[in-house]
């Protein structure tokens, strides 16, 4: 049997259901093997979109998404999607075709060193030059992608390696090599003890949740800990998907465009328990400010994250679910008394004041992004999955979209990849065809990957797209407005592109809306009928996302929405430091 047929057989045994990609000269043997398999293949329109679709699929399924591309340009087109998956710790396995071994290193047609190109950003990448190793290399890469801290892996396979006859599958190929078997570490008891003592010794504790909680499945442990110690929960951007925002202790996302009350929770805390987050600059601002005046307990599965950006007082290495369970038990043993909740009430007051203020802004001549986001939440089921592009619309979604069920919010957080939203939504819909999937997009982001509309129609995976259409690269424009003296350069997009016609050209219904009611009724109909649709919502290009913490500044240096003083709550009741 050919090596590639054995690999595909192994993929089936591992439960691979679908592969996103595009065939070409060098990965044709893979497609030929897929022809006889139970694995569905989805023909994307660009390899970047295939990688994002695999990413969206993986986040919903909590198992590796598989993507394939041919050698050369096919492989290099994957790179953005692979790096995006790395930055958000998402397990995807990329299978690239390579030119035949005899031509490798000769600058042959469509030859590119894809392993060399992705090596800084993957957990594992290798070119398979021995056909007898192919199945084992796939098993290794698949296992590596999802075990420990998830992330992308890549196997580069010369065409002739795929085609070699290697007999039957060796049983030893079924299990990964020892180096690929991640062994969960138990948290060190002395560190747990230190953490419990620290929690007991302070007044105001905030739990900062990162994306690691999603793949760990530690939502209920986070909530249990919060309830045990009366701690508000705030999240990073990737952490937003982990926690239901209708829980009374959840305040929303922190960071540059975080919620005021969430940033205030960090600013006013004596101790931050950071779970499954790398504590990036966008989330916490300058590390020195973050560390000043507060203790940090950092829980992460990746030991190299502990102390990378912020040196914690207590390091707890391990899977979030396991560590939190142990910590909760330790706290219960300690007989911890519940902490005062008065400050959480004040933060909630600020939350309500901000929402009331924003919702009270009325201007008959324009639609406001935050009201559209709120409306979307009202019209879609709790279980609906929402993806976003990157830009102002993403930050409005971050501020106003309330995640109600864990795992239902997918965004490109670390890399900030414009164009992520639509293909990721498609991948999510493939993973969960019975759920409503909505892509909240910007007109700039949408135009980067809008060909995915073809897939939505062709494979009948209807996705709803709402375009926040301000005819600009809105976030870049906002920075030019605030930090470059309004010297707008190359941020305005043409007024002539017709998104309704564009959608229709792909066979998807397009609707231009001019009122909240129109948006609501159109969305309601699409949800009811599970229709694919593109809803074009005009937004004023001068609308700016606030609050905003200027780049490089501490969370307390936020710019509030013009005219908002939090009814005095920002300056008097909440900030005590």
């Amino acid at each position: 049997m050919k090596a590639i047929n054995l690999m595909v057989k192994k993929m089936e045994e591992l439960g691979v259901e679908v592969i996103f990609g595009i065939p070409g000269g060098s990965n044709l043997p893979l497609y030929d093997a897929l022809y006889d398999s139970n694995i569905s293949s989805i023909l994307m329109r660009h390899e970047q979109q295939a990688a994002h679709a695999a990413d969206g699929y993986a986040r919903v399924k909590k198992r590796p998404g598989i993507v394939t591309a041919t050698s050369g340009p096919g492989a290099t087109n994957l790179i953005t999607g692979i790096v995006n998956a790395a930055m958000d710790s998402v397990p995807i396995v990329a299978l690239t075709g390579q030119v035949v071994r005899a031509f490798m290193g000769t600058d042959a047609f469509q030859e590119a060193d894809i392993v060399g190109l992705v090596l800084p950003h993957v957990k594992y990448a290798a070119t398979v030059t021995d056909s007898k190793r192919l199945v084992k290399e796939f098993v290794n890469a698949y296992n590596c992608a999802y075990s420990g801290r998830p992330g992308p892996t890549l196997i580069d396979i010369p065409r002739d390696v795929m085609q070699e006859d290697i007999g039957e599958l060796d049983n030893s190929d079924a299990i990964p090599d020892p180096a690929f078997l991640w062994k969960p570490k138990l948290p060190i008891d002395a560190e747990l003890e230190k953490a419990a003592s620290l929690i007991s010794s302070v007044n105001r504790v905030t739990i900062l949740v990162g994306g690691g909680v999603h793949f760990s499945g530690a939502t209920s442990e986070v909530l249990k800990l919060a309830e045990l110690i009366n701690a508000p929960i705030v999240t990073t951007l990737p952490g937003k998907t982990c926690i239901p925002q209708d829980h009374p202790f959840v305040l929303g996302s922190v960071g540059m465009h975080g919620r005021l009350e969430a940033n205030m929770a960090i600013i006013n805390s004596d101790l931050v328990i950071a779970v499954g987050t790398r504590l990036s600059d966008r989330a916490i601002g300058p590390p020195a400010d973050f560390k000043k005046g507060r203790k940090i307990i950092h829980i992460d599965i990746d030991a190299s994250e502990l102390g990378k950006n912020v040196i914690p007082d207590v390091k707890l290495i391990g899977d979030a679910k396991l560590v939190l369970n142990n910590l909760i038990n330790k706290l219960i043993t300690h007989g911890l008394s519940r902490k005062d909740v008065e400050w959480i009430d004040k933060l909630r007051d600020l939350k309500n004041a901000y929402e009331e203020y924003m919702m009270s802004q009325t201007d008959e001549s324009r639609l406001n992004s935050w009201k559209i986001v709120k409306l979307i939440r009202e019209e879609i089921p709790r279980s609906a999955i929402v993806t976003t592009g990157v830009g102002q619309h993403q930050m409005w979604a971050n501020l106003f979209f309330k995640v109600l069920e864990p795992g239902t919010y997918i965004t490109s957080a670390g890399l900030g990849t414009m164009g992520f939203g639509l293909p990721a939504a498609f991948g999510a819909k493939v993973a969960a065809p019975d759920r409503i999937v909505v892509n909240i997009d910007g007109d700039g982001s949408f135009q980067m990957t809008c060909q995915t509309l073809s897939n939505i129609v062709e494979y009948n995976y209807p996705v709803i797209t709402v375009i926040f259409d301000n005819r600009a690269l809105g976030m870049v424009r906002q920075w030019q407005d605030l930090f470059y003296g309004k010297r707008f350069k190359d941020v305005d997009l043409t007024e002539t592109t017709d998104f309704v016609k564009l959608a229709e050209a792909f066979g998807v219904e397009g609707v231009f809306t001019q009122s909240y009611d129109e948006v609501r009724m159109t969305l309601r109909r699409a949800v009811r009928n599970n229709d694919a649709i593109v809803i074009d919502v005009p937004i004023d290009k001068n609308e700016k996302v606030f609050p905003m913490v200027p780049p490089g500044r501490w969370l307390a240096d936020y710019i509030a929405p013009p005219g908002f003083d939090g009814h005095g709550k920002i300056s008097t009741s909440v900030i005590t430091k």
Partner: protein
Amino acid sequence: MGMARYRLQLSLNNQPEALGKLILLIKQARLSLIEANIKQASPEILNAQLLIDGREEKIQWLLNKLILFPYFKSVDLMSIEVARDVQ
């Protein structure tokens, strides 16, 4: 934290990807490579001894990072010089 000089001893897969990853991680940690001595221990395994300079926390980061990647079989670190001022 101060700068330090360390000798890093590794056992790694005998594949270009493993060596590439090692150098890229040293780059990511913004460490200086002073000396490298790499020998084949077996057809599958390389032994490497590196002399590196850099901030102590970055060297610690490198150590923690290396063990996460399947290219590397074992990593040992020995401090041979410390206490130079932060540059």
